[in-house]
């Protein structure tokens, strides 16, 4: 049963012929099709159907949905508070960012604003998550380019921030931290000192990253002028996050519509002009630097602030003494039983936030009942997936991992 049995003469485009064990279809003259994924080391939980002419991709069709969980439907059947642990499963290492707009949307419908300390604590965890998310993305990117050290280092350093998040929330990932009205824990003792140590460490490490990865000639060669997205194209495709800012668009939700405590903090939004894979990587590095800057300010602010009020008075004013004792002793905010059966006034709310991989938007509609009528979530990776279709063609096959990694595409987040 050798390969030679496939007769090539008179084979029309589109015609299917049988080989033992497989059907073979001619898709075009000099074209062939490879299926990257879903069981492929370079695909993640998705399939990329690539049509190649020689070594050059002529058509790329991202086939998503391999880890789809129908979160939007599941959310319609559960009470408001239960949607938070559900939604954070789309990007577990970015859990606070990814659920924050949902919480904000519910808060908008409830008509309440979280107290100041809670807003800072949310920013604290969001920025820790953002750094962890960027490091994760850079690690995956590194291994896509065969750079195993750049795989291990960010993952090792991410551990620092995961550990910080664990001290703060009690869980390494899936923190379920922000809830309508406030947050679930206050910072433990000695946390801000540890945070400052971690910040100092990370600043040093970023220099090492530059030396071994970003300024490494091999990596430069792989990334420069690869997957260039011009400013207009970026706007047209509606991509989000660091990828958008690498193309010279000054858009960041923290900039245009500051939420939580972001309008009281002093930081920059790095914007790069080039729009290629290298610029997208640099944006992430610069964003980590800015996040460290934000964390420093938040640490100072938290130290100065009185240690009280991480929950809105609506849920805290009538709290029994036991609740206040637990908060004073452990920093843990106990929830009123009404959280289990929270009713939200009728209305429609739209909220957005800047998650690690870009802008995430939620549309929450309530019909006054215990469960949301409709929760629509568009995650950053889902909006970035379009890059495969419109940017990858024209590049060589070996550029596909570079493009994939540089847009920091995360299939579970896109599939929801």
């Amino acid at each position, binding site marked *: *049963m050798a390969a030679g049995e496939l007769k090539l003469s008179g084979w029309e485009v589109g015609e299917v012929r049988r080989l033992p064990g497989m059907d073979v279809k001619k898709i075009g003259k000099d074209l*062939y099709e490879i299926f990257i994924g879903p069981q492929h080391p370079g695909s993640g939980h998705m399939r990329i159907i690539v049509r190649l002419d020689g070594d050059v991709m002529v058509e790329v069709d991202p086939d998503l949905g391999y880890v789809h969980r129908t979160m939007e439907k599941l959310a319609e059947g559960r009470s408001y508070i239960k949607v938070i642990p559900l939604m954070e499963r789309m990007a577990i290492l970015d859990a606070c960012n990814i659920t924050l707009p949902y919480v904000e949307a519910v808060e908008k419908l409830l008509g309440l604003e979280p107290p100041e300390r809670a807003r800072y604590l949310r920013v604290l965890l969001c920025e820790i998550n953002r750094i962890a998310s960027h490091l994760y993305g850079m690690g995956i990117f590194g*291994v896509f380019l065969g750079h195993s050290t750049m795989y291990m280092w960010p993952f090792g350093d991410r551990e620092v921030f995961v550990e910080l998040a664990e001290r703060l929330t009690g869980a390494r990932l899936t923190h379920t931290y922000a809830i309508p009205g406030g947050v679930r824990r206050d910072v433990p003792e000695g946390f801000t000192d540890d945070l400052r140590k971690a910040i100092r460490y990370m600043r040093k490490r970023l220099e090492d990253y530059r030396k071994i990865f970003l300024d*490494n000639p*091999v990596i430069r060669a*792989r990334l420069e002028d690869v997957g260039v997205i011009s400013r207009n194209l970026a706007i047209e495709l509606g991509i989000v996050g660091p990828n958008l800012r690498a193309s010279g668009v000054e858009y960041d939700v923290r900039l245009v519509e500051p939420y939580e405590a972001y309008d009281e903090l002093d930081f920059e939004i790095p914007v790069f002009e080039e729009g290629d894979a290298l610029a997208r990587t640099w944006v992430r590095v610069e964003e980590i630097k800015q996040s460290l800057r934000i964390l420093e300010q938040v640490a100072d602010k938290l130290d100065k602030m009185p240690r009280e009020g991480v929950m809105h008075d609506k849920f805290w004013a009538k709290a029994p003494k036991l609740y206040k004792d637990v908060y004073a002793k452990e920093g843990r905010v106990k929830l009123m039983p009404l959280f289990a059966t929270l009713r939200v006034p009728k209305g429609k709310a739209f909220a957005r936030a800047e998650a690690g991989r870009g802008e995430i938007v939620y549309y929450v509609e309530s019909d006054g009942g215990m469960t949301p009528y409709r929760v629509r979530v568009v995650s950053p990776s889902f909006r970035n997936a379009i890059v495969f279709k419109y940017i990858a063609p024209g590049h060589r096959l*070996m550029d596909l991992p570079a493009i994939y990694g540089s847009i920091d595409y995360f299939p579970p987040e896109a599939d929801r």
Partner: protein
Amino acid sequence: MSGAITWLGEWLFWPPFFQLVIAPGLVAALVIVIFILWFERKAAARVQMRVGPYNVSPRLGGALQLIADLVRYSFQEFIMPFTVDRAAFVAAPLLLLLASMLPMAVIPVSPVLPYSYAWPNIMKYNLLLALALATLSPIFTVVAGWASNNKFSLIGAARESFMVTAYELIFVLALLSTAAPVHSYDLVKIVEAQSTWKLMALLNPPAFLAAFIATLLSTSGFPFEIPESEHEVVAGPFTEYSGLMYGVEMGAAYIKRYAMSVLMALAFFSGWKPLDPQPGAGVWSGYVAPLVVVLVKATIIMAVMSFLRAVYGRYRLDQALHLAWKILLPLALLGYAIGLVYGYLGVL
């Protein structure tokens, strides 16, 4: 009985057999490759905040992990897909291994117990012979990819053939530049002409650099791990292989790297120097000791190559070819010119 032992001993130590099968051939190669694989994993782990292989033999730092892997590979099922060309599919890895080792048969590791009674005339050209044999193996990688009847394998095989055409000329030119100064293609003479500090690598750095990078190119070492590049073509030509055959194919690249490292240790790093065995020396001082020195030098070269895994990613195919044709080839030519000048001036 004693006659049989003598006969066996004669066979065993008959240089063409001993060189190919015992040392520096198959047995020594396996030992060194296992060490290098262990070193590669440990070195990468040190750089990468990890521990590396450990649990199999904590006291040896996990050195037996490779043996365990080998055992696992040998007991794994060898799956033959329905659509492969069976004969070529099975033959390719074995021939690849054999072809990777062939240069060993003609590489001298000592000046004294040489080939005088084996192939006296041919051995004057052992450098050329070794180079010619070293360029034989890539064809079987291509065969493996083609016989697999898999698109990823095919792409990998095509990449391999691109890489082969790129590196061969460079490697040959770079090594020939060491033959020019001594007016001989005999590696023994090339080694004898060098001394402890008068190393060919120091006298002719362009040639050495070209040979070093060409070795990385030919054995898919980082940053040129392109034919097997995991994130586009899974395992390149070896995608359809499993079990022992996969182990053999992966090992073959290292054995080839080892053969080329031995060549480089001789041509650029003065081989068995500082030892200087005189004619009439016994087996130990005349053959085994120089052999060990050569192997140590080759191992160090390989260790440096392995270390690069922790520092580099992989180039794109066209960039690797660009590097090979536009930078390394001129570099090798420069090295050759330097070699010619040395030869004309009679420096060595």
